[in-house]
């Protein structure tokens, strides 16, 4: 009988470098965050330091303003990007135009549903989004109840790098406000999920009903207390 230890103990890593140790060249890496909101800042920087190359980055935006995942583009460690929106991410526009990076742009709802599907063991599903558009090119369509839908397949990854507000040693995690976005789904879809927690709390400190992401979907946890958390578009109104 084999008695290999499972992955669900001793998840807490002392350093970002330790947490990222299993990363490898050519890996498919999902990174949570909506633009710069909810980025695993230390893990993102740590990947550049790690030295892994030829990464397939799967993330909504791939950074902006030279920050976040734009660092990966500048470091030349990305061979392909699957995202939904470039916006003013000049590094991504430049990497695409130079041919340095292969770019795949897909609708955001399809993007996250494909990721959830991978995590949930659903190999493919039908969606109305993209029917009759360039997104449908080369894809199978099918009618259900008189409406046409596209067949979309699951999108998985080798690693997911996520940022959470609080995590416990099992990897149970909570997110703050709109920093949650894609992270819980990416955690489900990756073979190895590495969580960067603003605060590591004791087992039991998060009430069972208050866990946003159960630790079954998290494999490595590193506490990182300081974050830049840059504003992408800081808008305010005058106090009355």
């Amino acid at each position: 009988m084999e008695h290999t230890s499972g992955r669900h103990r001793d998840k807490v890593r002392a350093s970002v470098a330790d947490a990222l140790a299993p990363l490898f060249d050519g890996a498919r890496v999902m990174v949570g965050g909506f633009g710069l909101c909810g980025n695993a800042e230390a893990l993102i920087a740590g990947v550049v330091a790690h030295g892994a190359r030829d990464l397939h980055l799967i993330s909504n935006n791939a950074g902006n303003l030279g920050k976040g995942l734009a660092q990966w583009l500048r470091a030349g460690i990305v061979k392909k990007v699957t995202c939904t929106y470039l916006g003013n991410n000049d590094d991504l526009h430049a990497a695409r135009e130079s041919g340095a990076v292969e770019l795949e742009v897909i609708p955001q709802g399809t993007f996250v549903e494909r990721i959830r599907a991978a995590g949930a063991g659903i190999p493919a599903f039908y969606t109305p989004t993209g029917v009759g558009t360039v997104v449908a090119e080369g894809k199978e369509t099918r009618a259900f109840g008189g409406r046409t839908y596209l067949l979309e397949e699951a999108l998985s990854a080798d690693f997911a790098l996520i940022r959470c507000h609080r995590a416990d040693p099992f990897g149970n995690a909570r997110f703050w406000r709109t920093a949650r976005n894609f992270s819980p789904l990416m955690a489900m879809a990756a073979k190895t999920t590495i969580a960067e927690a603003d605060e590591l709390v004791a087992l039991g400190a998060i009430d069972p009903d208050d866990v946003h992401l159960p630790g079954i979907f998290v494999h490595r946890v590193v506490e990182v207390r300081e974050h830049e958390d840059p504003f992408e578009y800081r808008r305010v109104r005058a106090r009355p």
Partner: protein
Amino acid sequence: MSWDKQQMAARAAREIAPGSIVNLGIGLPTLVADYLPDDAGVWFHSENGLLGMGPFPYEGDEDPQLINAGKETVTVVAGGSTFDSATSFAMIRGGHVDLAILGAMQVAMNGDLANWWIPGGKMMGIGGAMDLASGAKRILVLTQHVTKDGEPKLVRACDYPLTAKGCVHRVITELGVLDVAGDAFTLVELAPGVSEAELAAKTGAPLRTR
């Protein structure tokens, strides 16, 4: 004459039924929220994972982890909720969002919408546009009537890559309010000082007046 942007937004706000769930696209549509009465009971959805989006924060209250889909700092109202992106797009794709107010590059008389890319121009990406256009129960387009070059944005058929087919119900421009009617646009309302002849001249598809 015609409407300015604020007047367009005010007119669009009148399209919002009390007690509905509304998603406002980036740009001009975001102005609409300012023209709703406080007691409208309208809930704003932002596809990055927020329902019950409030106005921009007071200076000093801004939170980099509380943003809208345009990545602008926002607030959350009492009764608001945050959730992951799969849940957010389930709301959209599942038909739970009553109304999406979107910008447009072109709208065709059959309701086809093009609002994500003009070939040859900078490709900003798709984001949530296709999901919103095909998923929300009702699509209201808020746009200038013609391009900066004077070309009609309301057309017989879209030249630009589509966002979704046959999704648009109504269009509000600086010249008036029009419905898509399959083989024409139908005039619903003229902005002050705008004639039917002017509207017809600036519309790249047949215009039916009631």
